[in-house]
């Protein structure tokens, strides 16, 4: 049986910020681009970003891209690639102005320029004091940005395939990428999207953890597809715990609350961040603040029945500021924490939020393969946004830099794809025989009548294992047990089954297919974490409490085949300026 083949110049998987920034570039260039998304584009997880976009446009006072670059490198605990970081920080102002021209409803200053707020880890003059660098639309920046990008794509007549789930990457014998197989959710029909260039913009996989700020859809589909196609995943041990998730609910409370002047308190009413980060206090990097909170809780200074949360106080900002700058936060706190932050502090706890690692790319969004000596682009394959690893965020991402990354790398990936497609000429490279076979097998197993493992139970086991064995603080024995548990659940995941056999909008089937992707990401994360014997950024090892630049200033590459790990060097050389040499990280 053959499946329908649709042909395009480019296929983009994912319609969040990076996917739609790239598709806009391609559509405006007059190329035929198909954007596949599991959900209607404005439902993508970019919609949930709150606090802002980091760009040194200096509307509130002196600022320079090189200060932003320094902060990002320091924030990354020196694991970020300095060429990619320089590129992002230099391009950020232009990307923000572009977005403004697209109609983004940014908050404004009296003089009509775009307002900027302070954010964690962003400083003036190489760490001297906090700086106002984050452009925003109240605390709905991601929502405003995602809708703006969708609107411009409507204008550019981008072709969307809404509620199509990509299943597997298609490569030929030479390793070149030729598109994806995908499933139309409404009909249950499969098709092959054949293209000269393929971009993964599928977001992160925060749903491998039990408690996460992430949407249900964040199942790491791009990472799973890449891993199954033999592409290693980079730096998957680095998972960001956002300091302020609503206790018990996991819903994100933006760092913008602290940017606007909110702060954290323990049960003694102490503003404890003053002890951990005397200079930046509550605006230190997220890894630093999350560890401080977890320490306070561990040492008995948490609140609540189980002493397992701390408080985020913002009532002193006043009703007017909260209504103007943080209206969404007030809405969330009232709904999910039963407190009105105008009067009372919000109970918060560090919660999994962002995946620093991903599919290895350079700053053009080209997916690269490490030969042992150099990175070589894999022809026809690109990744951007949270699923890609450029690596800008290294071991810890700064707040606001995720949206900056989406815009800058989304655009540069779009441009690199245009150049590649134009250099390719008219003909599409030939598809290998049986290109859709692996996908057909995966779907076919779920359609078969045989009983097997329950999808919910297997997913719960993954989430519980990651949460218990790979948290804010990591211990060698727990990591080793975690690896064994994850390998055991991986065996169960091969035998998942569903009861629903309907062809029409079968969401049980979608969840089972997503589970295959979650499984790959969880394996990569646990195995990479167990191997890294140092503490850097978000990866904190009790048995190796210090950063070890002699042995571990390098990127991890996890290979699915045999769970093999290799390593590659960090790009310490920026594009035009001098290297920022690794030094002790103090906030």
């Amino acid at each position: 049986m053959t499946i329908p083949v649709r042909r395009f110049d480019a296929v983009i998987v994912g319609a969040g910020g990076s996917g739609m920034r790239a598709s806009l570039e391609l559509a405006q260039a007059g190329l035929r681009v198909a954007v596949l998304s599991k959900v209607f584009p404005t439902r993508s997880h970019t919609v949930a970003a709150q606090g802002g976009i980091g760009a040194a446009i200096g509307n509130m006072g002196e600022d320079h891209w090189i200060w932003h670059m320094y902060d990002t490198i320091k924030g990354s605990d020196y694991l970020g690639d300095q060429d990619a970081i320089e590129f992002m920080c230099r391009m950020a102002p232009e990307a923000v102005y572009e977005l403004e021209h697209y109609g983004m409803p940014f908050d404004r200053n009296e003089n009509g320029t775009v307002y900027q707020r302070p954010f964690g880890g962003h400083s003036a003059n190489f760490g001297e004091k906090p700086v106002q660098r984050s452009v925003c639309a109240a605390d709905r920046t991601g929502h405003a940005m995602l809708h703006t990008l969708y609107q411009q794509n409507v204008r550019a007549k981008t072709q969307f395939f809404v509620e199509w789930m990509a299943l597997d990457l298609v490569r030929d014998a030479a390793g070149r990428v030729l598109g994806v197989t995908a499933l139309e959710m409404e009909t249950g029909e499969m098709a092959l999207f054949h293209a000269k260039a393929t971009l993964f913009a599928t977001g992160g996989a925060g749903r491998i953890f039990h408690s996460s700020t992430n949407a249900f859809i964040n199942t790491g589909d791009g990472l799973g597809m890449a891993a199954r196609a033999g592409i290693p995943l980079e730096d998957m041990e680095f998972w960001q715990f956002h300091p302020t998730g609503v206790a018990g609910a996991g819903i994100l409370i933006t760092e913008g609350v602290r940017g606007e002047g909110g702060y954290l308190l323990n049960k003694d009413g102490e503003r404890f961040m003053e002890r951990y980060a005397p200079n930046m206090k509550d605006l230190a990097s997220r890894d630093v603040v999350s560890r401080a909170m977890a320490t306070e809780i561990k040492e008995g200074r948490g609140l609540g029945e189980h002493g397992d949360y701390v408080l985020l106080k913002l009532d002193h900002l006043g009703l007017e500021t909260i209504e103007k700058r943080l209206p969404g936060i007030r809405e969330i706190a009232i709904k999910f924490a039963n407190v009105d932050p105008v009067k009372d502090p919000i109970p918060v706890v560090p919660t999994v939020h962002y995946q620093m690692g991903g599919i290895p790319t350079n700053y053009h969004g080209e997916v690269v393969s490490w030969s042992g000596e150099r990175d070589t682009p894999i022809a026809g394959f690109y990744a951007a946004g949270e699923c890609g690893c450029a690596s800008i965020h290294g071991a810890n991402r700064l707040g606001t830099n995720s949206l900056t990354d989406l815009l800058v790398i989304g655009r540069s990936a779009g441009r690199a794809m245009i150049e590649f497609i134009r250099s390719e000429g008219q003909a599409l490279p030939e598809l290998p025989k049986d290109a859709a076979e692996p996908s057909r097998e995966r779907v076919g197993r779920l359609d078969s009548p045989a009983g097997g493992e329950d999808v919910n139970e297997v997913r719960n086991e993954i989430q519980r294992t990651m949460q218990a064995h790979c948290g804010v603080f990591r211990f060698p024995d727990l990591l080793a047990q975690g690896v064994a548990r994850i390998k055991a659940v991986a065996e169960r995941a091969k035998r998942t089954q569903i009861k629903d056999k309907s062809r029409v909008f079968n969401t049980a089937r979608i969840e089972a297919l997503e589970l295959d992707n979650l499984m790959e990401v969880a394996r990569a994360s646990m195995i990479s974490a167990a191997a890294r014997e140092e503490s850097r950024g978000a990866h904190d090892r009790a048995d190796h409490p210090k950063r070890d630049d002699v042995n571990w200033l390098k990127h991890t590459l996890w290979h699915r085949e045999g769970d093999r790990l290799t390593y590659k060097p960090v790009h310490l050389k920026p594009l035009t300026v001098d290297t920022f040499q690794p030094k002790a990280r103090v906030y």
Partner: protein
Amino acid sequence: MKFRIQRYDPDKDAKPYFRDYDLEVGPTDRMLLDALVRIKALDDSLALRRSCREGVCGSDAMNINGKNQLACVTKLVDLKEPVVIRPLPGLPIIRDLIVDMTQFFAQYHSVKPYVVNDEPPPERERLQSPREREELDGLYECILCACCSTACPSFWWNPDKFVGPAGLLQAYRFIADSRDTRTNERLDNLEDPYRLFRCHTIMNCVDVCPKGLNPSLAISKIRTLLAKRAV
């Protein structure tokens, strides 16, 4: 807790029917979506859309005890039992709680929902005063969940001709933007017995909007602009 959910799978059902579920609600089940996710774990054939689970993506709009709402921000303790759950009314049902939103998005697209400015862009941002920017508050926050349009009798009768409250709210969002230079074309595009004037100010849209927005007010502002333009 008792739930009565409308089910329909065109693969095997001749027509929609109700199925009852009795679920022991735990301390972590705060919102209706929490309960629906647990029901789905027991009966994997229940189909619904959901994503952000915090009221910003607009996926899980449905008719809950007669009112269009988002399941993820509807508290279980506030619901009368049995909780009767239906798909959004007025749109074709694909399966269970999933409706075909083609018509809804077609109307949204018909208002040309994007800023157009005929002047070449400056090197930096276009300037906009805080007052001008405030004009967009209450408009840009729309999440396109369709609670409003599918609560509107005028949209039920003429979904192909009447833009509907969601589309009109967005139409006004671009009219109100000081950076947009196409106000006249935008008004032309709405000056039609159906597209705008099918609104009979029933105000269901205001009543159901989960983000507290007011499409009815936006519609009246468009009417005022059209009236001013006529004199």
